[in-house]
């Protein structure tokens, strides 16, 4: 394979290249976030996506080709979701004492997320498949994709909206809740998890371990509630 073009066409077909690019971009993004003292806007997911999008754009690689390689990373979302049971169990005592606050916060927060996303987008003229794709955006990715399909959205667009929601939550949560002087890590974590799923939870674990555990609970419970509420809301409204 002396011809560089042949080398490229070999690499472009194998999962190895895009798997490597995904991990390398994330390592670089993590370094950048650390160098900026974990400033909220320097979100590692956001930086890694920008790096990879630039590489795909410059090399003219379609997303489907990229995903052939990156799917191995994507696959781990499932086992990671199951693994949330472990920190949840470790915080069992706290969880038992806060069942009522969690139940009320879950219902209020989940409805607020679905209704305000649909309401704001509708008011700004978004209609059809794009609008419906927004309904489950606060739920974790595997849930949101299934719900999007069920309500007539576009699952691949929902995946992007879910990620952007998570990044938004991870960026705004800490400055906003600090400004409001909210010191209860249980409330902070739970709200971030229900609004910004796994990316919010990843951020919460970086900030405080109690917040991380409650964020994982918020994410898990809202995954279940969104799967029930989003189809109901869409049926009632549209």
């Amino acid at each position, binding site marked *: 394979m002396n011809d560089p073009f042949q080398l490229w066409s070999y690499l472009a077909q194998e999962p190895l290249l895009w798997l490597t690019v995904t991990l390398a971009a994330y390592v670089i993004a993590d370094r950048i976030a650390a160098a900026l003292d974990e400033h909220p806007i320097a979100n590692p997911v956001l930086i890694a996506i920008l790096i990879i999008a630039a590489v795909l754009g410059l090399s003219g690689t379609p997303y489907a080709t990229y995903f052939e390689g990156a799917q191995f990373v994507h696959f*781990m979302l499932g086992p990671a979701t199951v693994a949330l049971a*472990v*920190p949840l169990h470790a915080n069992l005592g706290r969880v038992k004492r806060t069942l009522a606050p969690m*139940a009320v*916060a879950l219902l209020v*927060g989940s409805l607020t*997320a679905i209704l305000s996303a649909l309401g704001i987008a509708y008011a700004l003229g978004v209609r059809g498949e794009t609008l419906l794709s927004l309904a489950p955006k606060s739920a974790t990715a*595997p849930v949101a994709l299934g719900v999007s399909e069920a309500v007539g959205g576009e699952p691949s667009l929902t995946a992007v909206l879910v990620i952007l929601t998570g990044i938004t939550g991870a960026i705004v949560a800490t400055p906003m809740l600090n400004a409001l002087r909210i010191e209860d890590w*249980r409330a902070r974590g739970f709200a971030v998890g229900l609004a910004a799923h796994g990316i919010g939870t990843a951020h919460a674990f970086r900030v405080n371990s109690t917040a991380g555990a409650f964020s994982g609970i918020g994410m898990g419970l809202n995954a279940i509630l969104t799967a029930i509420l989003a189809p109901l809301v869409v049926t009632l409204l549209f």
Partner: protein
Amino acid sequence: MIRNIAILLVFQLGGEMLARGAALSVPGPVIGLGALFVTLLVVPGLAERMRDTANGLLAHLSLLFVPAGVGVTAHLATFAEAGLALAAALVGSTVLAILAGVGAFLLTARLTGADGDE
């Protein structure tokens, strides 16, 4: 570690089979989460043995969202057309959902006497 990953996969697989078999709208991994949690209640020693694997996986949770996020490159036309409206909806609803969640949590905690951690 391999044994712990096998345990996670077994619970995910069981969850997927239940979700698809009974046509539930709750996804398989979430059912797996619930089933593993119940199992840990019954077998507390398992939680201790799985702790490092679970924490290791969750410490890099952010990475796992990157491939789906890169999908934005496949939807540039939609974002060119409705990007501002979608951005407003995402930011607005995420802020409102966090505030509503925190507010409802703190208010209920105060009413039920569960306020104050520890």
